Structures are given as C-alpha cells and as structure tokens.
C-alpha cells in the first residue's frame, strides 16, 4: 500500500468545488442569500430612517395676506413638506388628522400680517399628530426652523442693526439625510448576519448528515477543511458586498467619499471575521435550526444595540462600552463611517483593521481547536 505524502495547503480544490456545488444546487437558498441584502438595505435604508420627507401640511389662513402667502410658499418649497390643502376653518384641522389627510396643520392668526407689521409679533400655531411623538417633534422642529428663517429674513428687510444670527453647520451630513447614518450600520449588520449564518449552517449541516465525521477521519488538515469551506461563501459575500455598495450609492444616494479600495479591503476583512464567527457558532450549535437562531437572533441584538448602529457608543454606560468592544460590527461600522462618510484616509482606520484582524485569528484558532476535539 502506497502512502502518498500530503503537502500542506490552505485550500483543497475538490472541497472548494464541492461546497460551490452545494450552493448552486440549492437554488432557493442561494437566491435568498443574494436577495437578502437587497431587501434589508432597502428596508433599513428607507423604512427605518427617522427622517421626514414630504409630510402633508394643511393650512388654515384667515388673514390671507402677503406674509402668510410667503410663509406658506416657504413651507411648500422645503423638501420636508407638501402643502396639500387649505382649510376653511380651524375646526377642520381635527377632521384632517382623523381622516389621515394631514401630518401637520399650520394655523395662522387673524390679521397675521398686520400684527407682524405693527407690533413685530404674530402667532402661528403648529398642530401635529402626536400619536407618533417622534414624527410630531421632528415635523414641528422643521417647521419652526423654517418660520425662524423667515423671521430672520424679515428682520433683515427692516434692517435693524443689532441682530444675532446663530449659524449652524451640519458636518459630514449637511442635508441631515438619514441614510448617511444608517448605511454603515446596515452594512455592518447585514454582512455579519448573512456571513455568520451561511458558514455556521454549512458546517452544522455536515455534522447532522455525518459527512463531517468522514472529513475529519480523512487526511485533510482541519485548517484546510475550514478554509476550503469558507472560500465559496467568501465569494458569495463579495457579490453581496457589491450589491450593498451599489444600492448605497445609487439608490440611497450615499457616495463613497473616501478610498473605495480601502473600504473594500476593510469590508473583505469584516466578511472574513463574520464567516469565522459562523464557524465558531457551528462548533457549539448541534442542529441547523440552532445555528440559524444563534447567528440570526442572538447575533442581531448585540449588533443592533452595541455596535453604534442605533445608539452612539460614546453615550453608553462604561460597562456597555466595554461589552461593545467584542462586537466586530462596532469596529467595522466605525471604519466605514470614516472611509465612506467622512472621507478620511485609510491610515486612520488602522485600529479598526488591527482589532478585526485579531478577532479573525482568534475565531479561527478556537474553531480549529474545537474541530480537532470534535466528538
């Protein structure tokens, strides 16, 4: 019996090919994996953003003078509001809300222009539907600022010498677009969930069917086994990354203001960390359902709450800040914010890169050890 010498290699061609076959022959799962990021980024990018666009405004204007007309025009011109209708009486406001035909009602006082001209003071009432308190606050804030702008303009026209104007500059996100905040977070979440789920399930499936045992008894090194298994899912994730980036730029309108190459490299590293995390999950999970739950549900909460995606890490209590350090998404999202939104040079992401690399090594090392002791 001849004993062929077995050389050390990272990938085993036949194993990689076999894994690709698993993917391509399960068309339904493959389509799901490719479409999931599309659905998620559109869902998160549009639906869950808290910004207001084209809220419907109803106006009750008993004064009907040049000032009210101009202010109404201002509101309508803003991208936040559409002045949809004029009301015949203040009482109609209730009706408009109840029938769901208005998000905001603007009520001018009688003799609005006259008062303003004579006393320098006039009132306008803003009515919002506070069953959704966040939206109500946002709408009234936007409307107030438009009114304040208008007031400033009037003051300028009357050229009163002493006036204070506070100038507010919005950095990085001058239009206050929600997508700017959401895109890095959504990218961090989608990639880690999909990647971890894919690699965890693919390993656990082999444990369930018993083929893992046969692979472990074979002369293939566990190291080669892991990397051959990850390679096809890495390729699939690169397609997902491209989808996500294209959607972010062309659909959500968030440009890549820094180095695209840097962003891509950071994302590839993050994909690898996520796949390795799935590998780690697979060593604990006994069934495919458990693997799915662990990578889907259990991973989702810390990623959403601790990664800085929804709540800034700096505002968290110290213990949660510490906890957030072990969430890979935290570092990736921070890096993406720097590279994609702030347009900073890659050199400023070295900390994120170093931490993610460390995590990758740690996950792979633990998975390897577990795989070798596998029962």
């Amino acid at each position, binding site marked *: 019996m001849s004993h*062929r010498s*077995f050389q050390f290699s990272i990938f*085993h061609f036949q194993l990689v090919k*076999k894994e690709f076959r698993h993917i391509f022959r399960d068309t339904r799962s493959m389509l799901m994996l490719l479409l999931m990021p599309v659905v998620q980024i559109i869902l998160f990018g549009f639906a869950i953003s808290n910004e207001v666009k084209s809220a419907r405004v109803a106006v009750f204007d008993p004064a009907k003078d040049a000032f009210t007309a101009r202010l109404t025009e201002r509101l309508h011109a803003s991208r936040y509001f559409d002045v949809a209708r004029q009301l015949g009486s203040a009482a109609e406001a209730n009706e408009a809300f109840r029938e769901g035909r208005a998000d905001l009602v603007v009520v001018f006082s009688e003799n609005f222009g006259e008062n303003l001209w004579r006393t320098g003071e006039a009132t306008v009432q803003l009515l919002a539907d506070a069953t959704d308190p966040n939206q109500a606050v946002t709408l009234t804030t936007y409307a107030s600022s438009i009114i304040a702008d208008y007031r400033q303009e009037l003051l300028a026209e009357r050229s009163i010498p002493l006036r204070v104007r506070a100038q507010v500059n919005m950095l990085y996100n001058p239009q206050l677009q929600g997508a700017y905040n959401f895109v890095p977070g959504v990218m961090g979440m989608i990639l880690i969930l999909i990647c971890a789920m894919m690699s965890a399930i693919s390993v656990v499936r082999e444990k369930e069917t*018993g083929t893992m045992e046969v692979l472990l008894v074979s002369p293939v090194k566990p190291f080669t086994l892991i990397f051959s298994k990850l390679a096809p899912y890495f390729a699939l994730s690169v397609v997902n990354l491209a989808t996500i980036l294209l959607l972010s730029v062309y659909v959500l309108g968030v440009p890549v203001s820094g180095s695209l190459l840097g962003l891509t490299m950071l994302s590839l590293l993050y994909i690898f960390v996520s796949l390795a995390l799935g590998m780690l999950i697979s060593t604990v999970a006994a069934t495919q359902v458990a693997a799915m739950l662990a990578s889907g549900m259990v991973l989702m909460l810390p990623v959403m709450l601790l990664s800085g995606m929804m709540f800034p890490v700096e505002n968290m209590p110290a213990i949660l800040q510490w906890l957030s350090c072990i969430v890979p998404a935290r570092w990736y999202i921070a890096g993406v914010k720097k590279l994609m939104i702030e347009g900073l040079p890659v050199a400023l992401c070295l900390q994120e890169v170093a931490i993610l690399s460390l995590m990758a090594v740690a996950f792979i090392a633990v998975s390897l050890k577990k795989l070798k002791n596998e029962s």
Partner: protein
Amino acid sequence: MPSNSHTFYPPAADAQPLSVYTERLTKRFGSFTAVDAITFSVAQGEIFGFLGANGAGKTTAMRMLCGLSKPTSGCAVVAGYDVARYPEKVKQSIGYMSQRFSLYEDLKVWENIRLFAGIYGMGKKVIASKTEQTLAELGFEAERNTLVKALPLGWKQKLAFSVAIFHEPEVVFLDEPTGGVDPATRRKFWELIYQAAERGITVFVTTHYMDEAEYCDRVSIMVDGRIEVLDTPKALRQRLNAPSMDVVFQRTVEKP
C-alpha cells in the same frame, strides 16, 4: 484504578501481518474510563466484528484507532503507525464509513467518488479509470450522473462502502454500516465486504445485527470499556453453549 487481569488475545491461527494492534489501550474522560486497557490485534485481510452494547466504549476505541482522539495511556498501531504519534499517517492509510452512510446527497455519484478520491490524494487518471471499474462492479454505470439522494438506501450504503475503500486503504472502519436495511440487502452488502477482505483489506466493523456478527472471522464483545470475549463466532457459541451469536451477546453483556 483497580488493576484487572487482562488477557492477551493472539491473532488468528493462520498468522498474517497485523493491521491493528493495541496494548492496554485506555481512554479516560475525567474519572470515567471509557476504554479500559484493551489489548487485541487484527490480522491483515481479517473481518473483525467489534460488538458491544451502547456506551460500552466501542465508538471511543474506534475513534482512537482512526487517529481522531489520543489515548490516555497504552498504545495502538494501525497500518503500521502508532495512532498517538502519527495520526496523519494513520488517516492516510484507513478508510471510514459511518453509520449515517456519509455521502453527499446533493452530489452526483461520480462527484462523490471524485471528491473523496481527491481528498485521499489520488491522481486524476487513476481516479478516472478506477471510477469506471467501481461503477461496473457495483452495476451502477447508469447511475453515474444520478444525485445520491435519488438512490435507494441499500445502494447508497454499497456506494459509501466502495467510496471508503476506493483509495485501497489497509484497514477500513465500518461503524454500523447497514443500519436500517433488511437482511437481504445486508447480505448483498456483506458480499462487498468479503470481496474487499479477499483483496487484503482489513475490515473492522461494528454492528448491532447478530446475523452480521456470524459473518465475521472473529468477534469481540465489549462490556464497560473492556473486551469481555474475543474469538471466532463458532468458538464463542461453543464456549457459552449458545445456539446463536444473539444468545452469546446477551449472555456476555448481561453477565453480573
């Protein structure tokens, strides 16, 4: 640990080179001794039945012999290599078929053969010609491009066995290879085992079916981590004055 007396079991009478040899092979998990200083040997080309109730330590012993887990003490030599020192060499020289028949259901028949042959480092040309040969022997020529999941269970098991010995291992380990099939199909499966043994491949098989135990050259029965009896089925029946291996097994396992 209390020291037990351990019988040394010599190889079969027509002494051939040994494929498996253990001496006081032991595996402990904490204070639990799963395999308790077993000593036995299997000759090349022998069909060796490795029996025992669930939890008797069969699987643990087999895992050590396959190079998957390190012995706590004692030693085992498989295909000429010490399992503790050269697990990779051992893995290279053995074949393995698990009770869950261990092929990929979503791969075609030839793809499964190609994959496992590739894993054992066989060359492309050898694989191609041997695939033809194997498919012909099994009468599977028409099924070359069939997905394995479309095959009946008995066929899958025959294919899995052929894949396990495709790279001509010195020893093939079969872990309850015929679970869930009827006696007639099991008989056909055993024809393959006999063919392999005739070619000089040592067959190390665990089973719950006592009709299969009768097919083995020699049979060992494990109880509580130790090999309680080891001999040819005929000699065991005579020694325990039992009409069948079934009764031999019952009496051995239930001994107080």
